[in-house]
């Protein structure tokens, strides 16, 4: 069944999927990778973002991606608030390891149940002109439903990369993950910096949620399917490496696409996680981890 055209299509589809995976994992890359906070409620914010997009799309017909962008400030504030509660209740007392994990576990269920009660448990999908449409260039088909999320995923990665590397707050976020005391001596408040970083991470998840519901229908319990994938991409790319998250997303996306095309889609998760194990065996810190 092999043909060069199929191969080219599989690689392109994988690249697009990788861009989406990067968007989904950026927030956890920031929160888990840099702040070292095991926020297992992150996929719930992804799904909450998807529902936010659905509600605005349903009510006013606003494009789902635009709604995703519009909702990022709201989710930033929610994220900042969540971190403040987490800090005040656990981190400040040095009880963040196990109790903090339980806190986020509880938060995940609260978000999931709240969405169920408010919007029911039916599958939700958005409407947009480009869903179901595609273009073909030199025999390679590109579905807009996947192209747009991939482009936004790459743009989010680039924006976060530049923010972390070239702005005061970005550098402070990088610094807070390494030495909080030194950061305090430089006149920056680590708690404030972490609040900003956490807020950005949650806002990134909400925008990724808008991309998710553009690609596939969502139910409140969809978050469970993304916990493993998010953390796997973060670990594969290297803890704290934003560029590594994109590379890891692309590796997983391309491998899944190639397996689905040539060997059967059932093998895709096994191969993806096989790659993860192999990389960790050779480079325990991940591809670009320090």
């Amino acid at each position, binding site marked *: *069944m092999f*043909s060069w055209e*199929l191969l080219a*299509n*599989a690689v392109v*589809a*994988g690249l*697009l*999927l990788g861009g*989406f995976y990067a968007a989904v994992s950026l927030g956890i890359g920031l929160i888990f990778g840099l702040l070292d906070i095991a926020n297992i409620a992150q996929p719930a914010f992804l799904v909450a973002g998807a529902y936010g997009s659905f509600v605005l799309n349903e009510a006013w017909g606003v494009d789902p991606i635009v709604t995703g962008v519009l909702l990022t400030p709201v989710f930033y504030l929610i994220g900042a608030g969540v971190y403040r509660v987490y800090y005040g209740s656990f981190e400040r007392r040095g009880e963040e390891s196990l109790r903090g994990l339980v806190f986020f576990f509880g938060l995940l269920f609260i978000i999931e*149940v709240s969405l*169920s009660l*408010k*919007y*029911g*448990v*039916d*599958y*939700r*999908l*958005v*409407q947009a002109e480009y*869903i*179901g*449409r*595609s273009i073909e260039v030199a025999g390679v*088909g590109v*579905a807009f*439903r*996947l192209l747009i999320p991939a482009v936004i995923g790459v743009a989010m990665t680039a924006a976060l990369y530049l923010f972390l590397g070239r702005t005061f707050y970005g550098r402070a976020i990088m610094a807070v993950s390494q030495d909080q005391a030194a950061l305090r001596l430089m006149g920056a408040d680590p708690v404030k910096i972490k609040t900003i970083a956490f807020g950005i991470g949650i806002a990134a998840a909400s925008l990724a949620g808008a991309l998710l519901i553009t*690609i*596939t*229908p969502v*139910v409140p*319990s969809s978050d469970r*399917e993304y916990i493993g*994938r998010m953390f796997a991409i973060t670990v594969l790319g290297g803890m704290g490496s934003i560029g590594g998250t994109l590379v890891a997303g692309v590796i997983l*996306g391309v491998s*899944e*696409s*190639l397996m*689905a*095309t*040539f060997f*059967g*889609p*059932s093998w*895709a*998760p096994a191969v993806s996680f096989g790659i993860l194990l192999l990389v960790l065996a050779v480079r325990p810190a991940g591809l670009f981890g320090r």
Partner: protein
Amino acid sequence: MTWVLIAATTMACVLAGGGAFTARAADPIKIGFGMALTGGLAGNGQGALLAMQIWKDDVNKAGGLLGRPVELVYYDDQTNPSTVPGLYTKLLDVDKVDFVVSGYGTNLIAPAMPLVMERKLLFMGLFGLGNNEKYKYSRYFQISPGGPHPTRSFSEGFFELAAKQNPRPKTVALVGDDAEFPQNALVGAREHVKRLGFQTVYDKTYPPNTVDYTPIARAIKATNADIVFVASYPPGSTGMILAAQEVGLEPKMFGGGMVGLHFTSLLTKLGPKLNGIVDYGFWVPEPTMKFPGIEAFLQKYQPAAVKANVDPLGFYLPPWAYANMQVLGKAIEATKGLDQQKLADYIHANEFDTIVGKVKFGADGEWAKDRTVAIQFQGIKGNDVEQFKHPGRQVVLYPDQYKSGNLIYPYAAARK
């Protein structure tokens, strides 16, 4: 004086006994069950619960069963099979229910079976696939109309229709979720492929958390299959439909065993993209399936469903959840008692008029005869929900007894 005392005491005992008897007669008949109110199957589970509550209200308004009101005692099984044995033990030992019926779906019925068999209880199943195939338990009944060979019933109409086309399609692609229902549906599909002499050119499954279905659709397109049978849960159904359109996969027939296309949320969002797809169905609002009572039921269900935030059309599961309870209720009235063996014997021996039509069970508790229909989505315009309440959108093609229109063939012709 002694005789007066004896007479008074006797009278008091009789009156007290009578009082107690009166109290028992007024006690409700309790029917217990677990239901998927959260988790993966909750979308259907909540609709089923609403339908069962409507049945309870209807029965109680009409005077109850045997003059006693009916009470439903239920718990959320969270779509988690491991919760089921505990829930049913509690229903029987703590809540002291008179009957247990199943929650929704094969996976939630299976863990209750050992308990109900051990206690020799009547057990009405709601959309289980082959739960009694090995047990052959004589007090189990199952309401979905898959007939004696349910795994084959989902795909029978699809392949029978394909075999009748001229020129006859030759090659088949089979694809489905790595999950229980799709796997069973694929087993049945393979049997039909063999029986009808088609040639399989693609036969693969995909993990349920697949995000991008375009590589799968492209791989199928490369095989140039005449017909494509998809056995999927809602995310896979949506993903395969969108991916097929995006990569230009346009076989002569497409569909088969796609779950989710019966739900309002996906019907309205996919809209015209559904045109031409042939799928299985149990009940659709076509003139050939207007059974007595179904309209009245939907008139009660649909406004209540909007308020309860569950599937507002309610064509897929709710009528069957109601009909399942109708069978139990009619059997209780007919046998004039709650004896589980007598009830089971009565249900085996008789045909029941329900809102989903006449129901007759076979030896293993499945429908005596398969009544799964094959439908084709036709003439869908825009995304308005109202159009799906009227005939002509989900046209019944198979079997002939319920046929309400003709197959538009090939698939591309229905999409114009």
